[in-house]
């Protein structure tokens, strides 16, 4: 069951990521990224992180990506053209990405046995629900980072409003 879930949603995530790479119009890339995020949410749920799966859907795909889609619709700049820069980027980009992937997968495969495995039958059922565990740590030991992130969001709101404001007509 775990295996079936993993294979289906991993394939969906990889297909979405490749679609993001290959599509010419940014709105198709944005929708493929939404598909990637939703399949990642299912994978988080299968790893026991229920609250994170819900936060991924509500915050990441339901708010941040809506913002992206909004901006793409409003600016409406059309499909991208191929310039000299992009031809050269193919020669740098694809080997670079392959190199990073080979390095990472080599390390993970070497340590594969030490990492163990996940299964729905072996999922740890603790006395506290996942969200109770998270809030226990978040509001006691990590309270300062939590408050600092709220200030960070406030600063980001102010910055976004100032940057995107139309210039005053004098």
């Amino acid at each position: 069951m775990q295996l079936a879930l993993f294979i289906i949603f991993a394939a969906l995530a990889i297909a979405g990521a490749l679609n993001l790479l290959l599509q010419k119009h940014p709105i198709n890339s944005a929708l493929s990224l939404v598909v990637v995020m939703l399949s990642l949410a299912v994978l988080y749920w299968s790893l026991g992180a229920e609250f994170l799966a819900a936060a991924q859907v509500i915050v990441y795909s339901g708010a941040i990506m809506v913002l992206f889609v909004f901006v793409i619709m409003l600016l409406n700049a059309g499909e991208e053209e191929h310039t000299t820069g992009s031809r050269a980027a193919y020669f740098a980009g694809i080997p670079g990405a392959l190199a990073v992937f080979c390095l990472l997968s080599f390390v993970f495969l070497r340590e594969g046995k030490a990492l163990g495995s996940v299964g729905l039958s072996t999922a740890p059922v603790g006395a506290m629900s996942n969200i109770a565990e998270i809030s226990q740590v978040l509001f006691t030991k990590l309270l300062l980072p939590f408050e600092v992130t709220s200030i960070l969001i406030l600063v980001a709101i102010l910055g976004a409003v100032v940057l995107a404001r139309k210039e005053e007509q004098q």
Partner: protein
Amino acid sequence: MHLTDFQTFLLLSLLKVAVVLVITLTAVAYTVLLERKVIGRMQNRWGPSRVGPFGLLQPLADGIKLFLKEDLTPLLVERPLFLIAPIIALTCALVSIAVVPFGAITLYKGVDLFEVANVNVGLLVILGITSIGVYGIALSGWSSNNKFALLGSLRATSQMISYELALGLSLVGVVLRAGSLNLRTIVDSQSAHGALSWNIFGGLQFVAFFIYLMSAYAETNRSPFDLPEAESELVAGYHTEYSSMKFAMFFMAEYANMITVSCVATLMFFGGASSPFGHLTDFGGPIAMGLQSIFWFVFKIFAFLFLYIWVRSTLPRFRYDQLMSFGWKFLMPVAIVNIILTSLAMALHARV
């Protein structure tokens, strides 16, 4: 033949899904009729009364009309997005019903009969699906290649994402009192003393209830917040270019959203499937108890739908800037104050 536990679970779940889907779609069709009749009576006229006795076969006639209309696809629309948008809207409207418990907990061979999926974070699932439903509206306006549709859909999208905030914050008070996000637990925490222990009365969440109600009216794009799709504004908003089947899907999605919102309101604030007389009227075995609980649940849903239609026929429409400032400058701060007061009350109560 003897089925394993997993096969029993799978079969019963499929059966539950089929039953819930059929009942929801029928309810959607008859909600349309209910709205037309009730608005008609409030305006001192009959409403549809020709087709069938009291107009009861009107949804059938409407359905036949919508399916047989010509399915027009204008030139230069982006075909894949044009086709996907109503599908996203309808799917998100129907999936939320999967985590809603309809009746008292009734186990048959270890499977809960009155809830399709008992998820530990059920409330967050509903909020997440509401967030994804925004894409249906955004993409429909964009892919129509029509300036008015794009404007209507952008207005509707920004309205929905603004009121999602107040929606979620107003439900935090309920979660604080129940101590869990599981919808069954929230319903069970309100069934102790009948109507007095419902979250709106005994739980003192009446402010949160009104915030939730107003945010839900704005989320489902219904009066008095229905600027993006009103007939006299912006042609018809984001579904201008849609006809026949796809328009029917948007239409059904709107009414299914209304039903979902009513379900969540009864679960959170009115005790879900528990009766207002509490345990005074308990009699009969599990079957009778189950049927009673379903009866109370449907009664409350019906009351909420009536309220929706009543508000639509009574109140005038908000202007767009009034709408946005109401959501951000009034509802969100009041919801936050409600959270602070609820947690203060709970902390003081726990100390005493």
